[in-house]
Each structure stands twice: as C-alpha cells, then as structure tokens.
C-alpha cells in the first residue's frame, strides 16, 4: 500500500458552510498511469441538504462508502468515482471538510491501523485546517474590501473630474453649487455650459446605480451634453440627441435623469427641458415656492423620445434650486423620508446662494440625525437673480439726470417730522431689496439728518419746509435732505467721546452727525446762499439683501 501516496493532495478545502473534500478517483486496477495523473484536482461538494452531510457530521471516524445505505446523490457520486472511504474533518462539532480515499494501491481493504491512523490524522488536522480556512476567508474579505475601496476611489475620481471647478460669474446673478457624494458614490453630476450670445446651460443629472459603472455613464452623458449643447441650444433637442446617443450604449438597468436649463442672464429668461428629473423650485420675491414643470422620459431608456420644452422668467430677487433626489430621499432614524414638502418649506425665507445651500444642509442634518450614513449623492445648484437687476443704471433711457427718482417730498419743518421722513424714505426704497440691517441704518441716518434740518435749518418752524429727494444713481442709493439754513450751516462739531460725556467734560448730546456718518457709506454737505443740502449715499453692491458675493 502506498498509503501516503494515496493520501497526497486528497484534502481540498473550501469555505464553510458546505463540507467539501477533494475527490480522488480510484485508479483503474493495474493502471500504469503515473501517480500524479491519478489524483483529481477538482473539488467535490456535498449539498448541505444531502443526508451524507448529516451522516458525516455525526460519524465517529472513518466511513466505508460501500457500507453506507443512504438515499444520497453525493454518495452515489462518490461510489461512481471509486471512493472507498471518507474521513470526516470535524472540529468543534462542525464538519469543515473530508478526506476522500480511493482503493489502496494494493487493492486490499483499509486495515484497522489504517483507519485509526486516518482518524487520528483527521482529528489533528481538522482544527489546523479550520484555522487555515479562517485565515483564507479573512484574506478574501480584506481583498474584497480593498477591491471595493479601490472602485470607490476610481468612481470618486471620475465623478470629480467632471464637476465644474469654477462657477460662472454672471453679473446680477448669485450662483452656488454643492455636490456631496455618498460613500458608495452615485452618479450625480451638474454642469454649466457656456453658450453663444452670453447664454448659459445649466445641467443637473443623476445616473441610476452607483460606483464605477454609474460614474462612467455620468462621464459619457456629461461629454454628450457638452458636445451637443452649444450646437443645438434648444434644451429639448439637446436631451433628444443625448437620449439617442445613450440609448444604444446604456448598460442594462441603467438610465440617466437630467434637467437642462438654458439661462439668458440679461433678461432672466429660462428655457428648460426635463428627462425624468426632479422639478426645480423657484422661490419668488414674495416668498412663494413654485415648480418649473416639464416632462420627459429619462435618458437611455427608449429611443425616439421627445422632450417638452418650457419657458419662464426669473424675476429680480427670485431664487431657483435644482437638486438631485439624494436630498429628498434621505431618511430620519425613524425611517421617515425627508421629502419634497420639507424641501419646499426649507426654501422659504431670505437665504440665497451658498448660505441657502448651507441652510438646506443644516435642515437635512437636523432631520437625519448624527448617525446618518448618506444613502445617495446629494447635488444642489442654486441661481438667484439679484434685486439689483431691477435697477436701471444712471444712463438708462427714461431716467432723470442724476438717476431715477424714487421719492420727492416736502415736509414742514416741525419737530416729529424727522420720523415721517424716515418712514417715507423707507417706503420708497422698499422695492430695491435693501438688506434689512442697511435699511435700519438708512432709517436712522435719514431721521438724524432730517432732525438736524428741522431743528437748525428750519428753526423748528412748520412754515419752513425740508425737501427730501431719494434716487437711484448707478449703483448708489442717494438721499438728499435740503433745508433753508436759517440756523446757520452744519459745521464739524466736537467728536463725541463717551468717557468725556460721563466725566461731565462734554454735553450728553452731540451724537447726530456721528451716527449719520456710521450709518451710510458717504455723507456730503453742500450749500448756497439760502439752502443747505446733506446728501447720504449707500453703495448698493454691498447693501442688497443676499448680496452677490460668494460662489459655491
């Protein structure tokens, strides 16, 4: 008997839970084939449902195949392969494999010593083999994890490669964008495409699926849109063309939702088409939130699709939000979805640009909780037309020389009318979108200037009027307050010093001009023989509500 020769390479171990072994077919009697050729290299697998599996699990030692009486497919297969004995490898009550042995080379039965030796070998080998199995399993898991991580890195790289590095700088528009990848990296994308005549294409899309396949489809879609948009212009046609190109090459069970908007910055006109994407929201100047509706099938599903093309005009002060479904489909710890109504109501309010995006993300994070693992990519693009877009420049046709008059007012020089002046000026500038803090400053400056005009210029006489003119001059808001200079000219007074006032070295009063200078950007005093005018100027570039500063 060449016992060891028969045993060599007889153990082939696979992963749990299936008990497996290496089938060693018996060599034909008298075979002259070399030993190596008589050893099978393929594994033999016993189904967990096969009675042989349960039998081997409980068997006390070496099992004679020919003596078994089981209705077992595995047993039949073993017999067919010439296996004579099976030695179960059991450790901690678990069958982790088996040795399958063909007939001895001598064709004699396995002896009692043989069986004892095999049983001892199995008892000692099984734990070691189990350890080897665990190491192998762990190594396989590590390798799988590394493959996944590597795939995620590749997907992220692809994704980021195609996101705009710079946001468009559009006069009178505030543009901000956000892309937050989920760990598994979905196929979100956004883009800004320069078009002829100063127009700009704005794209937000979402590829179904995740990882490298989604990233590759995203890259392809991005390239198609970049190529076709400047040529076709029409959003409907661009999406039709993209669909035709994608439909033949789209992997199974994948498609792309995409919203494409063409913006004419000078007028606020938008033309848009939608391939199954979330409808964008517009927050109007009076704080309503409406949808921009357009319908169409996602890209890459069916050939010959047509895409509805719609138009709208974004008015000064209005805000548009384009977004992917990662935002609305996020879930709270209780399993509740964030949803469209929450997003709509989160849009109400004064925020715009990157502050709006930060506000929306804050609200989302509050909803999903700290332990949230982001389920899908989140993409947001917001564009806001500045309220300043409503204002004409100084040279605009139809304007008065010196700017567009918002208010001309003549008030009696009576104490108390400084508050009337303050309120009337505030009403006159209500439509230009002045930042609330700047409006408060303007009110104080007007009130103080008017009070000076009434007390000194008009000598507090109701018969002596104070004239007020409010106008837009270029990018400036200018308020002129004219009095009759009855009480003399305004002159530089002592700079108020609180320490001196508290020490009795200055009078408590004398804050008026000091306050005026701190409330507006510029104060000018001009006079002629019988009047004096104080002109207050606020530079609107820095003073409008949601002023255009940050990008992204």
């Amino acid at each position, binding site marked *: 008997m060449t016992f060891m020769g028969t045993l060599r390479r007889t153990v082939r171990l696979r992963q749990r839970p299936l008990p497996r072994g290496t089938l060693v077919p018996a060599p034909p009697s008298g075979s002259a084939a070399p030993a190596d050729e008589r050893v099978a290299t393929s594994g033999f697998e016993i189904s967990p449902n096969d009675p042989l599996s349960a039998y081997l699990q409980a068997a006390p030692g070496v099992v004679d195949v020919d003596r078994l009486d089981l209705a077992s497919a595995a047993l039949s297969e073993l017999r067919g392969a010439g296996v004579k004995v099976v030695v179960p490898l059991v450790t901690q009550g678990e069958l982790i494999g088996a040795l399958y042995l063909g007939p001895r080379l001598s064709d004699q039965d396995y002896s009692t010593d043989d069986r004892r030796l095999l049983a001892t070998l199995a008892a000692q080998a099984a734990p070691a083999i189990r350890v080897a199995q665990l190491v192998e399993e762990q190594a396989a898991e590590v390798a799988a994890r590394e493959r996944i991580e590597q795939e995620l890195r590749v997907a992220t790289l692809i994704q980021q490669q195609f996101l705009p590095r710079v946001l468009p700088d559009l006069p009178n528009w505030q543009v901000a964008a956000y892309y937050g990848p989920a760990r598994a990296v979905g196929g979100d994308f956004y883009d800004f495409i320069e078009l002829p005549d100063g127009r700009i294409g704005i794209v937000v899309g979402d590829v179904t699926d995740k990882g490298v396949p989604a990233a590759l489809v995203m890259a392809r879609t991005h390239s198609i849109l970049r190529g076709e948009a400047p040529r076709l212009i029409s959003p409907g046609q661009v999406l039709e063309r993209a669909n035709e190109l994608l439909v033949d090459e789209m992997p199974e069970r994948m498609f792309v939702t995409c919203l494409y908007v063409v913006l004419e910055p000078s007028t606020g006109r938008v033309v848009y088409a939608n391939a199954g994407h979330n409808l964008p929201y517009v927050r109007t100047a009076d*704080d309503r939130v409406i949808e921009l509706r357009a319908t169409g099938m996602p890209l890459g599903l069916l050939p010959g699709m047509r895409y509805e093309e719609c138009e709208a005009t974004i008015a000064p002060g209005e805000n548009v939000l384009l977004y992917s479904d990662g935002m609305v489909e996020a879930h709270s710890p209780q399993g509740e979805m964030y949803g469209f109504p929450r997003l709509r*109501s*989160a*849009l*109400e*309010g*004064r*925020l715009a640009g990157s502050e709006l995006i*930060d*506000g*929306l*993300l*804050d*609200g989302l*994070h*509050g909803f999903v909780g700290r332990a949230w693992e982001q389920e899908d990519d989140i993409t947001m693009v917001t564009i806001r037309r500045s309220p300043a877009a409503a204002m004409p420049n100084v040279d605009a046709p139809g304007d008065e020389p010196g700017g567009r008059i918002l208010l001309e007012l003549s008030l009696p020089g009576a*104490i108390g009318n*400084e*508050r009337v002046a303050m*309120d009337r000026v505030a009403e006159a500038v209500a439509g230009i979108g002045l930042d609330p*803090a700047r409006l*408060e*400053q303007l009110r*104080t400056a007007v*009130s*103080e200037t008017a*009070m000076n005009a009434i007390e000194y210029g008009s000598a507090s006489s109701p018969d002596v009027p104070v004239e007020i003119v409010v106008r837009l001059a270029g990018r400036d808001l200018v308020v002129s307050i004219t009095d009759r200079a009855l009480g003399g000219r305004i002159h530089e007074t002592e700079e*108020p010093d*609180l*320490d001196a*006032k*508290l020490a*009795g070295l200055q*009078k*408590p*009063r*004398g*804050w*008026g001009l*000091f*306050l005026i200078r*701190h409330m507006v950007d510029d104060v000018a005093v001009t006079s002629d023989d019988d009047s004096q005018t104080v002109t207050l100027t606020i530079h609107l570039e820095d003073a409008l509500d949601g002023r255009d500063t940050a990008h992204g």
Partner: protein
Amino acid sequence: MDATPLTADVAPVGATSVIMLRGRIDREGEAALSGAYSEAARLAAPVIELDFGAVDYINSTGIALIVSLLADARRDRREVRARGLSEHYREIFRITRLSDYITLLDEPAVATAGEGGRR
C-alpha cells in the same frame, strides 16, 4: 410705524430695578427716563436693568438721555444693564461705546421666517 412717546415703569426684581421702556426714546422721553431712574434710585437697588424690548425708536437725543442716565448711575455706583435691544440698536450701542459701560444681556433675535436651523 407710529411710535408712541416713551413710558417707563420701574419694578424691583431682587437686587435689580427693572425699568420697562415702551415707545420711542427721543427728546420727549426725557422726563419719563429721568423719572424712572429716580424711582429706581429710591428703591436703592445696586443694579438698573433697562428693558428695551418694547422700544421701537431711539434717536441721537435718546442716546444722550441714556448717557445721562448712565452718568447718574455711575455717580451712584449702580451697574446698568440692558435687555431687548434689536441688532440695529446693539450696533449703535457698540458704535457709541455705550456697550463698554452697559452690559447687554441677551443675544439679538436672529430668527428669519423659514430660514431653518443654522449649523
């Protein structure tokens, strides 16, 4: 806005005399404010707390009245605190340096309708 002339009510709260101000603080408010300080002084509280929560207008004359009250309080070795100022008037207190001498007790109201939570 049609702000009403200033009224000032004094109420002792522990070691503090709270002066509840309502309306506008301008030249017409001089009597109300100085009367309120006298009343607070009569209560001998070491701390005067000015509650501006119902004040909708303060002009430079009103600032001067507050400076006078502060001077009186410092003379009498009383601490002055302020509560309920809008962000605009907090700014004016900073510009005039009144906030160097008057403790501003509360944060300004920042809630904007629909703004949502800020991080």
